[in-house]
């Protein structure tokens, strides 16, 4: 198979992708879109516009083209080269720039082996990228490995609720023990935040929200138990329902009840503001 790697002049991520391909003996045609590859890229872009992802700062590079498939962003490119489509659920486009990589998300499903995932993360870390990892507590074994290697620079821990609500909230059960294992690693990660999403839901069995204040408090209590500390950056994030649901957004005032309940266990609990989403 003949690959084309579209790169941008001076792009660190492009160099990392190229380096990976070189290290693994993968042959490819490198096209710098600001140099000799300009016309080639124009043609490619016209023909594949709909498959190309634009991030907050424009088109994300590198872009790998297999002749049939477009793979974009250093994380996705490395994951594809490492394991084909197998890591698609766990390696997503990165929304971070300036030396950071995100989109590495262990939340979706159990990744029992995880060797390929680890290889991708390790390579990017080795090449100097700062790693932001997402999890909802699943795959504690991978978290443990990466934490032990100091490979995680920042962890976004989406705590969907107490363990017994995970099956309903995420479509996949999560054992309390696994959740606690993952939470216990917070103490050895340099930067992290815990985000507890709350969304309105269509009423059933008197339930109008995905997580009640009491359930949020139980989740907060779980964090305290797992970490032995009441002091973690803990955010209650109101999720705005999509217009087609017809559901009203949560009243800001209702979130204070969550905060009060959670602060019994997580004293720094706050209501999430968009400004909190950076860093």
């Amino acid at each position, binding site marked *: 198979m003949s690959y084309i790697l579209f790169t941008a002049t001076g792009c660190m991520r492009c160099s990392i992708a190229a380096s990976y391909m070189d290290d693994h003996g993968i042959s490819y045609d490198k096209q710098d879109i600001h140099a000799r590859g300009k016309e080639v890229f124009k043609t490619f872009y016209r023909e594949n516009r709909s498959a190309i992802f634009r991030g907050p700062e424009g088109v994300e590079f590198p872009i790998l083209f297999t002749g049939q498939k477009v793979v974009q962003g250093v994380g996705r490119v490395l994951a594809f080269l490492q394991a084909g489509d197998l890591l698609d659920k766990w390696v997503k486009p990165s929304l971070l720039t300036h030396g950071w990589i995100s989109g590495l998300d262990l939340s979706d499903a159990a990744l029992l082996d995880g060797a390929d995932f680890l290889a991708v993360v390790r390579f990017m870390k080795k090449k100097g990228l700062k790693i932001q990892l997402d999890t909802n507590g699943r795959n504690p074994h991978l978290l443990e490995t990466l934490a032990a290697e100091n490979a995680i620079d920042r962890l976004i821990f989406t705590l969907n609720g107490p363990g017994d609500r995970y099956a309903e909230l995420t479509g996949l059960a999560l054992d309390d023990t696994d959740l606690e294992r993952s939470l216990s690693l917070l103490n050895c990660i340099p930067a992290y935040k815990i985000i507890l999403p709350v969304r309105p839901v269509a009423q059933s069995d008197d339930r109008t929200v995905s997580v009640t204040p009491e359930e949020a408090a139980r989740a907060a209590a779980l964090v305290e138990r797992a970490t032995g500390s*009441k*002091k973690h950056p803990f955010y209650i994030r109101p999720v705005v329902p999509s217009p087609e649901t017809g559901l009203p957004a949560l009243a800001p*005032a209702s979130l*204070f*009840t969550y*905060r*009060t309940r959670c*602060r019994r266990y997580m*004293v*720094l609990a706050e209501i999430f503001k968009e400004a909190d989403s950076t860093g």
Partner: protein
Amino acid sequence: MSYPTIYPTGTTVYDPDKAFNGYTVFQAKELGALVIDMNGGEIKLWKGLHGFPNKMLKGGYVIGHTGERSTKYSMQDYRDLVQVDWEGSIVWKFNAYEYIEDPGEEPQWMARAHHDYQREGNPVGYYVPGMEAKTDQGSTMILGHKNLVCPQISDKPLLDDVIYETSWDGDILWEWVCSDHFEEFGFREDAKNILCRDPNMRPCGGGMGDWMHLNAMSLLGPNRWYDKGDQRFHPDNIIADGRETNIIFIISRQTGEVVWKVGPYYDYTPESKLGWIIGQHHAHMIPRGLPGEGNILVFDNGGWAGYGACNPGSPTGTKNALRDYSRVLEFDPVTLKIVWQYTPHEAGLVHPTDSNRFYSPFISSAQRLPNGNTLITEGSGGRIIELTAGHELVWEYISPYWGNHFKMNMVYRAYRYPYDYIPQENPPDEIAIAPMDVTSFRVPNARAKGAESEVSVEGVLPFQSSSALCVVSDTDK
């Protein structure tokens, strides 16, 4: 202006027929919450109970704080708000706003309360007929602090103001963060410039900018403006004022937006009608049931406040509005017309040469009383006065309590309550105190006035009825 070294304290003037007779509560400096009668008799002291301010609830309750956070790490952060009964027992307490861990201090929850609070049932915390604050239930609105960084304002850490509501059981029900609304206050570019560089930095905690310094917060309560359909004056809306910015504003309880304001500038219409309000305190809407209901009552301190263009009194543009006397203003919030005021002129002082005899450059307050009188705390000198609508002084009290640490007899804010607020006590005697003739009053061993020898000088002219002084005064008219 020179103050005498020796002067009386306690009640100095009292006309029982014209005063609204009752109990007055205030925080006696570094002593506790003190209730006095009209003759200055000290009816009750809750020793050591802090008060920023102290307020009373019917039944002999007082509200205050058990202590202040170490001033090494923050400023004016009171750790809780407590309701204390006549016997001194705490019957309600709130502190669960923020968990604080200061070096060398026991980690603890703190309310971070400062300057004001309101218990449900009464919008302003002082006596309003038919609007009693609840004593065994109800929510409490609290003015508090929060440390944050707001790049829109400054790159420096800020000591921001928040208003929050807690239920009787201690659940936070509502919260408003001042810096979230920075753009709604209408600062000019020169003000934004100096705010960015110096948001009123205070040295505590490594430095933090007390940029707004809210010092009053109350509800509007039922009012005629809202009855006429003006949604800005919804009874649940909140009025507050920022000492450092010269702004008085109302926020919507529903949206948090600033829906009405005066300031930060008073050099254009309609604010120019008010004159430049500076460093004001205790801005509130006079509640329904009191004379002047619906008007805004404020102690306009003067002194130094504001951000803006540099001037000789403010080389950097911080605190660039300056005035060396105070005013109490009552104005219509729709037309901004002043409907009552007490300024050096009404106080009978020659303006501007003697104006700063009515002057408190910080703290202070004004309370409208049911008989139309106004209780004014001219705080920096510990002076509490009651005036009739016609500006007659019918009660005056000077606090005899100077602090050991802070050597002033300052009174932050005093409140007057009817006698039935304290059922544990029988109403005291009311004994008139006529104003003394200070021209003949002498301390022991001082000699009486009057020359021992007097001669007339031939050819001298009588004294002018007006005085062409070194500066123009209102006697030049």
